[in-house]
């Protein structure tokens, strides 16, 4: 064993550093850049969708290609963008926040990341195959998904690989949190971001294998003669929906719980007050996780379920609003009478909480079975899930980037540009998605490339908002690159109100942070 000091910053240079790395910070960086690239790929597809929908009638693309765009856009954004981005944050932050030298299983950590690029390659390749990419929507319901060309097989194998990556990543995160905490860092002292990731990792381990099972049955129905989803053989296409949504609803909380963790780190920092109701936050998160497994059929109200099912899933779904409400109230109470300042991360956190709440309220509307008969598969649902996923998860990711970039790079980002990016993003987000509520209520169906004349104005507003939203992200890329390259030297603490172990180490954080565990009081 070489001397400690000599080993500290040692790593191979060039490409091999990134290919072979076992360092949580390198791997975190890889995850974050991968997600960033995927956001642009998925964003480009969204631009195609909005361009086609700018006017009624068929403008730019074939309907079949339009369907591929809605399908692959969602798959790329969920599995390639939001999920890897949060795993990137987990890699960077969790070891620093709990005072660990690295993730528990560093080689497996590297593998979890390096499963992603081949999987993404498969998904993108599918678009160029005969018959095109998957076009059955990201929910890949049979019988549509049991028909069609090999693009669907590409999607299925992609899902398997991405899912495996998530499973390995979650095992690692749980082992790290349960086994690598510094002395004195009891569970109920952990930063909330760590807590939310612990629970998210559990959700992933319980939900992802079920998705793997669902797509495996799809694959055998497609190629090996099984009849899981074919009534002629005694199967049932609706069964796929049950299995899929048993995964699918926990999945939406997988996307948003780490965002709740980010809000819970940022808001106390800039309100200069400890998080209000820490333990109630932990229990609310755990409650949400539990409930998320018994609400899945709220996605299937119109499929023809027995009345008892409709009622059960309606009430269980509405129950989720309670722990979610607890969280929102806690964030507001944290800000109450705080000495607040509004740096970019705080702006993102406040906007994230506020806009996410709008999405939660539209969710509550959708939860009401008889009302959902009207809203289901309309743009109202599209508006709902963009308010929760974009405003909840993606705004949290952007806020997290501004919050921790100084710690990662050692440089402050440009505050003026950051604020400009914030306002461009949030305003154009609302311009894009708020009108979609009206479109949905008026009956415009989702996933259709054409629409009736009366929907034109709102669609045009929405498309213009989308183009601005897409272009604004180039500014984000510019800011990030600029911060990496230079900028005002960041202090160790970075933010005046920052609390936690990661703020006690230098900025940029050294390659190996806590070789010897700190003592937490």
């Amino acid at each position: 064993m070489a001397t400690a000091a000599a080993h500290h910053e040692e790593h191979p240079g060039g490409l091999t550093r990134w290919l072979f790395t076992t360092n949580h910070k390198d791997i975190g960086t890889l995850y974050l850049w991968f997600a960033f690239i995927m956001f642009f790929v998925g964003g480009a597809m969204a631009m195609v969708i909005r361009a086609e929908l700018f006017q009624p009638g068929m403008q730019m693309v074939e309907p079949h290609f339009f369907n591929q765009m809605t399908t692959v856009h969602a798959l790329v954004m969920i599995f390639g963008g939001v999920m890897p981005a949060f795993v990137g944050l987990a890699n960077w932050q969790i070891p620093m926040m709990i005072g660990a030298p690295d993730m528990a299983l560093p080689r497996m950590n590297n593998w979890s990341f390096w499963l992603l690029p081949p999987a993404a390659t498969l998904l993108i390749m599918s678009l160029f195959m005969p018959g095109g990419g998957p076009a059955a929507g990201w929910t890949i319901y049979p019988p549509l998904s049991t028909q069609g060309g090999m693009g669907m097989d590409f999607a299925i194998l992609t899902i398997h690989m991405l899912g495996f990556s998530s499973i390995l990543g979650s095992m690692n995160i749980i082992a790290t949190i349960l086994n690598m905490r510094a002395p004195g860092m009891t569970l109920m002292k952990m930063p909330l971001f760590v807590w939310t990731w612990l629970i998210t990792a559990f959700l992933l381990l319980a939900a992802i294998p079920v998705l793997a099972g669902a797509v495996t049955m799809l694959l055998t129905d497609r190629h090996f003669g099984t009849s899981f989803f074919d009534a002629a053989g005694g199967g049932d296409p609706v069964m796929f929906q049950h299995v899929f949504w048993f995964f699918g609803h926990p999945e939406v909380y997988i996307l948003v719980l780490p965002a709740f963790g980010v809000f819970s780190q940022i808001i106390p920092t800039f309100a200069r007050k400890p998080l209000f109701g820490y333990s109630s936050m932990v229990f609310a998160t755990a409650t949400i996780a539990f409930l998320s497994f018994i609400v899945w059929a709220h996605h299937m109200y119109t499929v023809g379920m027995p009345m008892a099912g409709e009622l059960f899933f309606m009430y269980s779904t509405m129950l989720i609003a309670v722990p979610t409400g607890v969280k929102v109230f806690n964030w507001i109470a944290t800000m109450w009478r705080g000495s607040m300042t509004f740096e970019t991360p705080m702006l993102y956190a406040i906007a994230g909480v506020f806009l996410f709440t709008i999405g939660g309220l539209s969710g509550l509307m959708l939860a009401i079975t008889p009302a959902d008969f009207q809203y289901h598969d309309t743009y109202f649902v599209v508006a709902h899930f963009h308010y929760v996923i974009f405003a909840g998860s993606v705004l949290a990711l952007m806020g997290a980037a501004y919050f921790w970039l100084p710690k990662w790079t050692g440089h402050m980002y440009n505050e003026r540009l950051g604020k400009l990016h914030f306002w461009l993003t949030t305003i154009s987000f609302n311009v894009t998605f708020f009108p979609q509520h009206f479109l949905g209520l008026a009956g415009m169906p989702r996933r259709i490339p054409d629409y009736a004349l009366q929907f034109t104005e709102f669609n045009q507003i929405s498309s213009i908002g989308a183009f601005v939203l897409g272009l604004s992200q180039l500014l984000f890329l510019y800011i990030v690159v600029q911060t990496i390259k230079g900028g005002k030297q960041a202090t160790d603490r970075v933010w005046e109100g920052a609390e936690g172990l990661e703020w006690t180490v230098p900025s940029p954080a050294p390659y190996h942070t806590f070789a010897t565990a700190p003592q937490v009081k």
Partner: protein
Amino acid sequence: MSAAKGSYYLPDPSPWPVVTSVGLFFLALGFIFLINSVDGGQWLMLAGVLTIVYMMIRWFGQVIRESEGGAYDDQVDRSFRWSMSWFIFSEIMFFAAFFGALFYARQFAGPWLDNTELLWPGFDFNWPSAGPEGPAAATPSTPPAGPNQFSPMGAWGIPAINTAILLSSGFTVTMAHWGIQKDNRGQLVTWLFLTIVLAIVFVGLQAYEYVHAYTELGLTLGTGIYGATFFMLTGFHGFHVTVGTIMLSVILGRSIKGHFTSGHHFGFEGVAWYWHFVDVVWLGLFIFVYWL
């Protein structure tokens, strides 16, 4: 070895994860090509498999050397334990998806098909069923009389024997574990060897049963929902038993070479946990797939 100060073992950069991913990519791509009759699929798959096998020998070999070299302290050991437990949990959820499909088909989908007169009037749903357009079910485990018939798999022949075999193997692997705990290598090796023999007999009987089903009972993967759930559940289980048998064999080889001590043998325990897991899944299969 690069443990920057602290005692926790942090491995050096490693090429094996990336190599694995490249192998998996070719395996997946080749598989897609194969099932879509695109030329060359099988060669891509072969390249992928060879890459993965090579990686496993190198990567696991390195882990074994590190372990025997004393690199893993108790804390590292605990990391392995947590992650292995949660991995097994995820495997349970994978099987849960197929069990869920079985329950759903039997409890909901079938009766609904029976009750509606819209598509297949006159269809009576009785489990085992291959659906309204599938072949009809004949007496279990006896070759069916007519052409459009299949015979489901009865519980009390080979499956019951296999249940006894797997339960005994759970016992033998525990005996082997007690052997290593007492530092009694003879006991470890003997009982481990017996476990592997039982495992191989189990897989052999399963293979025999499959051939029987395909050639004589008219029961295939395509035999409606019964055939689908039957082969999917038993097939994935059989695959897991096979993987478990390979893992047990590696552990046996290591035991013979003198690896493991009474206080440090997670390699053994992880495999034993995995073995108990396939055991428990089998009990579920025996009850819900074969018996009820």
